[in-house]
Each structure stands twice: as C-alpha cells, then as structure tokens.
C-alpha cells in the first residue's frame, strides 16, 4: 500500500504535528539556554547580556545546590524503596484469591487518581496535623506525645506522601508480572524442596526483575520533578528543598531568571545522565 505517492503525502500531513512538537520543545529550551547566560532580574529591571557561564558557576557553587542534590537523591531513594518493596508485598497479597478481589484491586489503585496537590493537602491536614490529625489522635489514644510530622520529620513525611501516591502504580505493574508467573514453576520448586522463602527468592523475584526495572525507571523520571507535594507541605523548608524546588525558588522567589535558568539546564543535564544510565540497565535487563 505504501507507494511512493502515499508516503510523501503522509510526510506532508505529519509535518504540521512534527513542526508543532519541535516548536513546543525547542522554544522553551532555547529561551532557557539564552536566559541562563543573562543577568535577568525582572523586578530590578536588569536584563544584561553576556554573563557567560557565570550563572552556572554561581548556581553550582552555592551550598544550597549540593544540599538540594542530596535531598533529591534521598527523596528518590526513599520513595523507590518503599514503593518497590511495598508494591511486591501488595502484589503478592492481591494475587491471593480473596473475596471481593475486584473491588479491593480498584481501591488499591485509587490513590494514583488523586491529584498530587490534593493528596499532599489531605495528608498534611488530615493525617499529619499535630493537633487535629488522625496520627496525632492515634498517638494520644495510646498515651504518646503527638508528633509534628512536617517539622520534625519533614523529608520522611514527604517521602511517605509521595510513596502513597506511587505505590498503586508499582503494585499494578508488579501484580501483572506476578500473574504471568507459570504456576508449574512454583510447583516444580516446591517439589524440589524449596520453602516459601526460597521460592520467593529463587523463582518469584527473578521473574519480577524486569518489571522492577521498569517501575524504577518510570518512577525516577517522574520523581525527579516532584514539586506540588513540597510546595503544599513544607514550602521547601526544613531540608526538603530538591533541585526542582531550588530552581523554582531562584526564578520565582528570588526573581533571578538567569540563575534559575542555569539551574534548570543543570537539572535537565543531570536528569538525562540518570535516564541514560537507567536506560542501559533496563535495556540489559530487557534483552535477557
């Protein structure tokens, strides 16, 4: 069917969409690159050219930068750990035949449909509030001092909130993977004398390896840009300032577009490095 004619027609008809996508992507990127070389502070009315790499040097050399990198990694690591481990556990539980399986599965997936801002607010006010929160009530009920989660364990609290949002995603992917495991393999392992733990370690976990890498890859891409949860809860205070949040502060709060743009470009580069590494790891895992 694909004659020379229809192929060029297809190209012509796709061109507007491709063009739009290119503009959509390239214009902001080029603008950001351009801004990152300027001393651009709109409130002071400065718009001076030719900072060169000055903004980059200033962004990287501030102590906030390295702190934010560390915070980002802690957040990423914490959420990945909780969602992967919890996801495997939940997937195994949901794979068991139980009454009302369909409803339970939908309930488990529900948090994924809640908007980040909303879920962060719900957690902040309903659960973690030191006076009226459910956690505070629970602590008081057993005679413990209520904890002010967001100021005493701010990063951990945010990790908890984000994990709650992403656990359904991990569970869903891992559940489908577990369901595709051939039950005869487990039976064979049982006959071979493997106990429940060995069966999990030698059969189930290797079977899940591929899906775990997919979960880690996809979550990493999204978790690097976590913003709403921090904005709504701590506002970047108490050591919860990630790289994304730092860029936001530089641009909006300090009104230093040049410095913020430089930070943005650095974030893009770092995210690409992470993505490249993950792609290699996943690629290897997917080949096998």
């Amino acid at each position: 069917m694909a004659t020379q004619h229809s192929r060029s027609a297809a190209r012509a008809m796709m061109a507007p969409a491709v063009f739009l996508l290119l503009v959509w992507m390239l214009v902001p990127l080029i603008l950001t690159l351009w801004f990152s070389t300027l001393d651009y502070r709109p409130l002071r009315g400065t718009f001076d050219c030719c900072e060169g790499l000055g903004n980059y040097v200033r962004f990287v050399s501030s102590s906030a930068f390295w702190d934010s990198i560390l915070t980002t990694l802690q957040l990423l690591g914490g959420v990945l750990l909780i969602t992967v481990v919890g996801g495997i556990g939940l997937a195994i539980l949901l794979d068991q035949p139980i009454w009302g399986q369909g409803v339970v599965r939908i309930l488990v997936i529900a948090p994924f449909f809640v908007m980040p801002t909303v879920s962060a607010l719900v957690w902040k006010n309903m659960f973690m509030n030191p006076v009226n929160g459910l956690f505070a009530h629970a602590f008081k009920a057993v005679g413990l001092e209520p904890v002010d989660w967001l100021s005493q364990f701010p990063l951990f609290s945010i990790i908890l909130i984000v994990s709650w949002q992403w656990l359904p995603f991990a569970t869903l992917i891992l559940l489908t993977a577990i369901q595709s495991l051939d039950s005869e393999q487990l039976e064979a392992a049982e006959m071979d004398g493997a106990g429940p733990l060995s069966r999990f370690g030698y059969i189930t976990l290797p079977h899940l390896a591929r899906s775990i890498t997919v979960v880690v890859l996809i979550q990493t891409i999204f978790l690097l840009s976590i913003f709403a949860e921090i904005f709504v809860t701590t506002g970047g205070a108490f050591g919860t300032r990630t790289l994304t949040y730092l860029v936001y502060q530089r641009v909006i709060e300090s009104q230093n577009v040049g410095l913020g743009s430089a930070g943005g470009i650095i974030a893009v580069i770092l995210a690409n490095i992470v993505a490249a590494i993950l792609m290699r790891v996943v690629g290897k895992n997917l080949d096998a």
Partner: protein
Amino acid sequence: MGRITLDKVRKAFGDVEVIPPLDLRIEDGEFVVFVGPSGCGKSTLLRLIAGLEDVSGGEIRIDGTDATHLSPAKRGLAMVFQSYALYPHMTVRKNIAFPLKMAGMDKAEIDRRVDGAAKVLNLSSYIDRRPGQLSGGQRQRVAIGRAIVREPSAFLFDEPLSNLDAALRVGMRLEISELHKRLATTMIYVTHDQVEAMTMADKIVVLRAGHIEQVGSPLELYRTPRNTFVAGFIGSPKMNLIEGAEAEKHGAHTIGVRPEHFQISAEGGTWTGTIGVSEHLGSDTFFHVTVPGFAEPLTIRAGGEVDLHYGDTIHLTPDASQIHRFDAKGLRLS
C-alpha cells in the same frame, strides 16, 4: 524403593467429586501409565500422589509409611511437568542443581551428580545455556535431568511428550523407556495417548471420570478389555463395536472386533460392504467399510499393497476367536 499404595483416595473440588474413592497398588520399579481421555482425572491423581493437591479422603502410602499429609518435598518423588517448568533465569546446570542446593548438599557432590546426569542425558554441550536457548527436546531432557539428580524413590511424568513434534516424541519415548530400564526406579506416567501407554508401560491404569476402568499389562488390556470403554480406548485404530442383530447372534448386546482381526476376500464372507475412505500407510492399509445394517462404518486393516479402492465391494469375515462380547452395560461377557 518406590512402592506406592493408594487406599480409598478421593478428591473433591467443592461439591464436585473428581476422583471417587480409589484403590491402587504400584510396585517398586514398575512403569505405570495412567491413561484416559482429557478431563478423566489422571493428572489430578498424579498431583495427589505428588502432594501438590490435598486429598479429600483416604490414605497414600509410600514404601509403607503414611505420606498423605507430607509436603511434596518430603515424599521423595520427582516430577516432570508438561510445560517442563524449567527456571528461565538459571542455566541448565543451575536448573539441575536446584533441588540438590535446596537439600543443602555440598558443592563437590552437587557438581558430581549434575555432571553425571548431564552425561547420561547428553546435556553436556549446552550445560551453560539458559532454557530459552534450547529446543523442546533439549528442555525435556533438562527437566528429566533435574528429576534424576535427586535420586527419588519414584518419578512422576505429567504428559511430558505432548509439547514435542511427532518424530521427537518417538525418540523421547524410547529414551524414557531406556532410562527406566537402567535406573529401575518406579515411574508413573500420565498421558492421553494410548500409543505411549502401550509402548512404555509395565502396567496401564485406564481412567474414566475418576474411576479406574481396568488395570493390567498392555497385552492384557488388548486381549481382554473389561468393558467397551477400555476396548475402544486401547488399540489403534479403535476396535469396531457392533450392536444389534449381529451382536445377538453371538449372544451379546455389543460385539467388538479389532481392525486387524478380519479376513478379507473377494468371493464371500460373513459381512459384505462397500469401501469408503482408505488410508495407505505403506506397511498397512486401513479401509473404512460401510456395511448395510451397521450403524457405523467398520475400520479394517489390510496389507500394505492391497489392490482395493473407493467404491469396491469387499467381503469380511471376523476371526471367530477374536470376537469380544459385551453385555448391555458394556461389561465383558466371558
């Protein structure tokens, strides 16, 4: 040792009884084949013996000790699954070594046994590959290797050849028979293919809907089927079962004559019919002959080079000593 006794073993899934109480004795070193149409409960029976399903009643004894509630691993049996159930992320060597590793055996002994099994089954050339890189026959061998390294008291095979092509199936059939002769270990083999049952078994157990229809050596079942079901199931092509007036002449409700027990002649015989489809196999020719008054066409075996064709008239005389007689319930009349 591998003497397995089933005493009134029954299995029900909810309200559905798939295996009504059933007794069976399997002697040490026997090659026993469970055969029957699909859904007859033969795989379930095997899984009950393996311990992968819990019995709903009765007792399973292995070598005299009660194994009814033992875990599968403790029964000392090894199983080869229909899908082979190899561990895809492990090499052939690790697959075979897995049961030994789980038993906590030391490394030198594991290596010795794995190498031994690999040599017996000709796996040595692909011992470091993964199951995904192997052909069906090779995977089958690995699955058998994983079973024999454990030196079990009995092997259980669950339709192991059904995923192989016809040529490989014949080859593997021979290999499994040879393995049985060499190891002299009890083997229980489940199949729906009566050819596999006839060629491999010391003892065939014919099952229908969870019931044992008949137990016996292949030739016993061939010569004296206890009922019409066994008569029709054992032997290929199927025995011709004839009801009505012809059967009453022999004082039976149904008579059965195997395709190979007819004399063909051009002049005259007991029955006269017209040849329909004929299948030329080279060594034999099978004719489907329509005889007026019979409900179904008869299948007749003739020599390979018979010069008879579609539409020809043929005279048939059943071998009088080879007529099987059955009563109205399908049971054999002696």
